[in-house]
Structure formats: C-alpha cells, structure tokens
C-alpha cells in the first residue's frame, strides 16, 4: 500500500517537474544557458555559491550541473526512477523443503502466482512471489498422484525454508497409480519458441 502511494507521489512529482520546466523554459524564466555564462553577462548575482544549478553528493558519487534545465530534467528522471522502483513492487522468496524420499519427482505449483518450482535432490525448492501476497497455496503433485494443497502465509512464517510433509494416500487413491507411456506424436512442433513452464 505504502509503495503505491510513494510511486504515485514520485510519478506525479516527475510529471509536474517536466511540465513545469517546459512552461518555465517557454516563459523564459529558465534558459538553456549555463549559470556561469549568465554571471559573466552580469545577469545573475555572483554570490560566491559556486553557481551550480544542481549539486548532489551521495557518498563517492558527485553530480553537478550548471544548466538549470538539465538539473530539472535530472530531478524529474530521478522521480520517475523512484516511481518505477516502487511501482514494480517488492518481491520475496518463498522456499520450502519437501520431506519425501522421491521429492525430486514432484512438481510444486504456486497457485495464483503463476509459478512452478521443481524440488532438487534434497527436496528444496523456491520461487519469488510479490511481497504483498498474504496467502500462497502450494499444490504438490507428481504424475499419477493426487495433488496435495498447502496454504502458506509468507508474512507469518519465521523460518525458511518451510517444511512440507505429504500425507500418505488413503482410500481409493491408495490404489496403484495409473501408468503412462509417452507418445511423441502427441507433442506438436511449434514454429516459434513458447514461454517455459518454469518462470526464469
């Protein structure tokens, strides 16, 4: 929520600065002429402040400009950059460990986040999700096995990765899993590359 407010303020600031600088340029209140040139012409008071329109020092980085228009432009760009950073939204890693001897055969679907993760040999898996997502439902399954759902509240979790234990099948699903013999003819060729199932 606060990220959205900052993004809106920064974007509005950037737009106001850009339009404002164009208006001021049009009215002749600011010029494309450097400040030191104006000082030499006697149009600006030489008060000994250095005559910089912009002087920013962040650690080792020093930015100086004697051109007021460029200074305004840089400030506007800074506002847009800030808006972009907050507009993208922060992300967090949601990781888990599947405690199953065949963990690497399973697929984990992060429902609602449009992501799929594959556990490694140790059963560990991870996927980035937007930070403002309060509930992630993980669906864990492998071919022939009924998927099992695990709701997860990322903001409430203290320890990562979260441990997941699959329940032993009971009832009708305890019957032997159906087998599948792959038929390559059922996989159509495509002209253009398709997006991968697992987000890069």
């Amino acid at each position, binding site marked *: 929520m606060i990220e959205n407010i900052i993004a809106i303020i920064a974007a509005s600031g950037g737009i106001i600065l850009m*339009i404002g600088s164009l208006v001021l340029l049009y009215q002749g209140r600011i010029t494309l002429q450097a400040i030191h040139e104006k000082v030499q012409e006697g149009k600006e008071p030489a008060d000994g402040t250095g005559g910089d329109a912009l002087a920013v020092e962040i650690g080792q980085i020093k930015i100086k400009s004697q051109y007021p228009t460029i200074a305004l432009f840089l400030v506007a760009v800074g506002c847009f950059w800030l808006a972009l950073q907050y507009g993208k939204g922060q992300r967090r890693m949601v990781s888990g460990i599947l405690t199953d001897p065949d963990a690497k055969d399973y697929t984990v679907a992060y429902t609602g986040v449009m992501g799929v993760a594959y556990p490694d040999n140790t059963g560990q898996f991870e996927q980035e999700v937007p930070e403002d997502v309060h509930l992630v439902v993980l669906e864990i399954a492998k071919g022939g096995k009924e998927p099992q759902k695990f709701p997860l509240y990322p903001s409430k979790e203290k320890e990562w990765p979260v441990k997941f234990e699959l329940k032993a099948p009971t009832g009708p699903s305890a019957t032997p899993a159906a087998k*599948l013999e792959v038929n390559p003819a059922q996989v159509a060729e495509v002209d253009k590359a398709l997006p991968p199932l697992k987000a890069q």
Partner: protein
Amino acid sequence: MNNHWRVVVRVGLALVLGFGAIRSTDAAGMQVLTLSGTVTNSSGQSLPGCLLSVVSELGRSAPVFTDGKGSFSLEASLPPDASSKLFLEIYWNRTLVFRQPLASLAIASATPNNRGSPQGATWQGLLSDGGTVVLQPIKLGK
C-alpha cells in the same frame, strides 16, 4: 486567458486523455476462456497429477494439476492478437507429453460469451470472445 496557460492546459488534457485511452485498451482487450475436462491414459484410466497450461508465444496461463479423478479446470486469457496460436500443454512430472492447438481439441459442450454470435460454439467464436468449454476426455500415451 493567458496564452501560456492555454498551452499548459492543452498539454495536461492531452496527457490525461492519452493515459485514459491506453488504460481502456488494456482492460477491454482481454477475454477469458475457461477450459475443463478429464485426462486419461490409453486404457481409459484417469490420470491425476498431470500439469496443464494453455500457452501461446505471448504468454502462458497459470498451470493447474488434474485432481484425483483426472479432472481439471483452468482459465486462460485470450491474447488480443487473434493470429497467435494457442496450445494446450500437458506435463507428466517434468516431461511434456501433450501439446496440441486448442482449436484441434474436441468440444463436449461450450458456452460462448457472445451468445448472439452466429458462429455458435465453435473454436473460432470461443477464441475471439471467450467463454466456457468442456473438452472431451483427453487420452494420453500409446
């Protein structure tokens, strides 16, 4: 009114209208197709745990698993560009075992969003206007 302020007001109006036009195009350009059905092997046994997704060169729907009875239901946003071909993909564990154009799959029943369309429940109408489709059982394997 001062000429300079007229320019500022005109620029402001152009920006507001421009952003508004972009937003409405995005919101209106997407139609949703809801697909459901079952997945079985060649001997007719239902296949739970298959991962399904609708994909085109522009993007992919959120993947879903088939449940204990091999049934699935997934939603796919249709791209505004009708020329991009949509495929249904099915994965068995990490292996792609099925990829066919959506328009080639047999429909059991369908309800297009645009009921008044003369195209009826054909893939052409469903892929342009969206709707709900129940597919005939998909048989995987040899």
